[in-house]
């Protein structure tokens, strides 16, 4: 369990060094300003390192400029070490590509793959991030505006944690795990009690706050969707699914569940949850993730569905013109325009909608994230490629922070599983990059 940081002592984000020698070099040579050595000269620094001529001064200068630039645009303010570590500056000499986007790294990240991320609701002051991992734990960090992340607390399950969500008042966290249970974690008392039971691993969990009831909705591989009052051990309601639940999302009064065998069901949650419609899947392959989006009046109006085949479908529930309004787009493929070479196609691991702008982010097994504007039907940005797949993503409540987790998602089977590989959670300033394109 991670104790809180010492009183008053800010946690320094760890500086990553790919090798101790280089780090030493960083300390000894004062960063030279960009103006000192003209860009053209090959400054061969006879360093004590001995290895290849590193041209350290230039690199440091370059890095310095990078930091200054990022400091300007960051909402988090400037900190000296942006938590990214020195290795990324030496991109040519080392192949460490774990953070090519130079985003803030969350400290004390989980030891195994991260399956789910969730930020606290607006009712809680500040930003708290919850992550569930395959190491059977759920961790909580406080994310400060400066970008520092402070590990706060941790809870354990007896199986990998597949989904997490917050209650609407921000006092409780619900966690769903492969141990066929779901737990409610009271953050104030740091106690967790079991609130749900299934016959198979619980894949999704959501907190429903309706005017006349509140409950937890759990979807499981036992093909049921159960609704729980946290005080009782019997579910309030059990709905049958056609197949194992693979992903779900809920924005009151709508919930959508995507199951195996390309099943897709929409539920309406007013009065009590009931099945609203079964939809024929707009995608050809296995469903992987789903996220509901809202219209201008802040009502849920449709959802985005991602599959393992590098494709996302945008589907409106009651569009004026279904043939035109619903569409799919390809993403997370290796070579976009090169038609001759076979593409590598990656699964879309997560979709998240920006709470303010309505634009969406997708993360994939290729280790990239992309931002899209579904109304203008354009891509806003694609990231550089990380060296691991990105397995989960999440926006905070006001859309300023985009969190994404870099860890192995089993997309290539057990052969590519490296338990020693570090898993990361990165935080990125999302206020600017997700502004919608002006559609003309």
């Amino acid at each position, binding site marked *: 369990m991670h104790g809180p940081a010492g009183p008053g002592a800010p946690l320094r984000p760890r500086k990553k060094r790919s090798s101790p020698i280089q780090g030493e070099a960083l300390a000894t040579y004062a960063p030279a300003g960009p103006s000192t050595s003209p860009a053209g000269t090959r400054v061969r620094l006879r360093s004590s390192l001995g290895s290849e001529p590193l041209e350290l001064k230039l690199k440091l200068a370059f890095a310095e400029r990078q930091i200054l630039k990022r400091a300007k645009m960051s909402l988090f303010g400037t900190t000296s070490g942006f938590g990214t570590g020195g290795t990324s500056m030496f*991109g040519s000499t080392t192949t460490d590509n774990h953070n*090519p986007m130079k985003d803030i790294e969350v400290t004390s990240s989980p030891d195994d793959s991260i399956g789910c991320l969730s930020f606290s609701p607006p009712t809680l002051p500040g930003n708290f991030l919850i992550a569930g991992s395959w190491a059977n734990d759920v961790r909580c960090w406080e994310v400060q505006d400066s970008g520092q992340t402070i590990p706060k607390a941790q809870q354990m399950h007896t199986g990998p944690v597949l989904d997490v969500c917050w209650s609407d008042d921000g006092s409780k966290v619900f966690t769903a795990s492969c141990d066929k249970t779901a737990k409610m974690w009271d953050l104030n008392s740091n106690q967790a009690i079991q609130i749900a039971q299934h016959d198979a*691993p619980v894949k999704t969990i959501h907190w429903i706050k309706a005017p006349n009831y509140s409950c937890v909705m759990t979807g499981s591989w036992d093909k049921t969707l159960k609704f729980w009052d946290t005080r009782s051990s019997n579910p309030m309601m059990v709905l049958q699914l056609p197949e194992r639940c693979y992903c779900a999302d809920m924005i009151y009064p709508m919930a959508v569940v995507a199951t*195996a065998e390309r099943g897709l069901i929409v539920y309406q949650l007013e009065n009590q949850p009931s099945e609203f419609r079964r939809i024929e899947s707009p995608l050809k392959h296995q469903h992987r993730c789903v996220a509901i989006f809202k219209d201008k009046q802040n009502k849920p109006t449709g959802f985005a569905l991602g599959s393992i085949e590098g494709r996302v479908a945008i589907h409106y529930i009651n569009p004026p013109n279904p043939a035109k309004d619903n569409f799919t787009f*390809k993403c997370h493929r290796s070579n976009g*325009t*090169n038609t001759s070479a076979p593409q590598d196609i990656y699964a879309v691991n997560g979709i998240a909608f920006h709470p303010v702008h309505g634009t969406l982010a997708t993360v994939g097994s290729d280790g990239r994230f992309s931002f899209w504007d579904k109304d203008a039907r354009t891509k806003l940005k694609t990231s550089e490629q990380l060296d691991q797949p990105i397995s989960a993503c999440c926006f905070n409540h006001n859309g300023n922070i985009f969190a994404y987790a870099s860890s192995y998602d089993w997309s290539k089977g057990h052969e590519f599983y490296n338990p020693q590989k570090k898993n990361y959670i990165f935080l990125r300033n999302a206020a600017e990059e997700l502004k919608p394109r002006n559609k003309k």
Partner: protein
Amino acid sequence: MTICQFFLQGRCRFGERCWNEHPGAWGAGGGRQQHPSGSNRRGWNATSQRYSSVIQPSSFSKSTPWGGSREQEKPSFGSFDSGDSTNRNRGFGLSQNPFATSPTSDEQKDEKKLLEGIVKDMEVWESSGQWMFSAYSPMKKKPSISGFTDISPEELRLEYHNFLTSNNLQSYLNSIQQLKNQWRNRVNELKTLNTSTKIALLSDIKDGINQATPTFGFGSRQTATFGSPGFPVNNSMGDNAQNSSFTTSSGFATAPTGSPSVFGNSPAFGAVPSTSPAITTSTPAPGFGKPEITSAASFSFKTPAASGFGSAGFSGFPAPMAAGPVGAPGAPAFGNSSSVAGFGSPGSHSHTPFSKSFSDTHDGHSSTSTSVSVSNGSTTTGNELFTPKHQLTAEELRQFQSKKFTLGKIPLKPPPVELLNI
């Protein structure tokens, strides 16, 4: 960062050291052979994004069902495909003439496109390195094609962990290998579409009776079981969903005469009797396993004339049955001709006892026994789908061979497979 003008011209003398941005220089950083498109490399450049993500006109755009061709002109989002499948209305609502030997050319084109699309999709699936344990459907709003197990990566990973803790990793690896082989076989089948798979696919898609969900039983080999041309059952899996799908099909089968469209599907089953000789001659190849998916419509092919044929055809059956890997307990029960005769008798009544017994034997993981019963039933029905030429009178043969049927002389038997062109 400013883009280095010299690099764009190909003559930047600083190379990596250059402080300006070299578009594309970062793309190779991952160590993989990637060729990121110009748009993907520098996502920062807002203006270039709009028309950037044009994706290759892949298989999807070729097959119009995705509406891709319409949308290819639109720059953004690559080939985003809007909305409903335009082929929804190309329902295979054949004319009321049950003996229409060939579908309309429009439909044929659709089928061709569908099949081409499937072939392309298979190729892409193989080469792209995407997740292999996924359901697949050739077109939006169409049911999934059978033969593909839908397993999510998390489920596999959980299995891995479980096996790891029980020190039984080898069985996990074996199961994975088996699943992979199944998948590969299925993909190869679909890539090299011979008539039997085509028929199976087409009826699969048309009738929309979905096949079973996969049990997570590692080790259930679908290729081990015989094809059951008459069944919506994916014979490697048995499940509740399957039960329900089967009951619908049996309901369907109980009204054979009342559904002329069923007979209209007969061309689709053209290849089935061709496989029945395969039964007698060779061990069931996976190819034969494919027609299993075809809908229950074939059950209704209980024409009176065919009954005698059915039992005759069946006699040859038990031999390969024994030879096949299916040594299930259910086999003998269905192997004897008495039950077959009962099954082969005209009318739909025979169905219900069969379907009942099927449902009985049919439980979660008894894939082999179900497949046996299934294959039994299907073979008989398969034999009844088409009459071999020698059973037709000259007149009937002439009718089939002519371009159109003459009223009053329309044969009551299904056409022979040789005359069908698929």
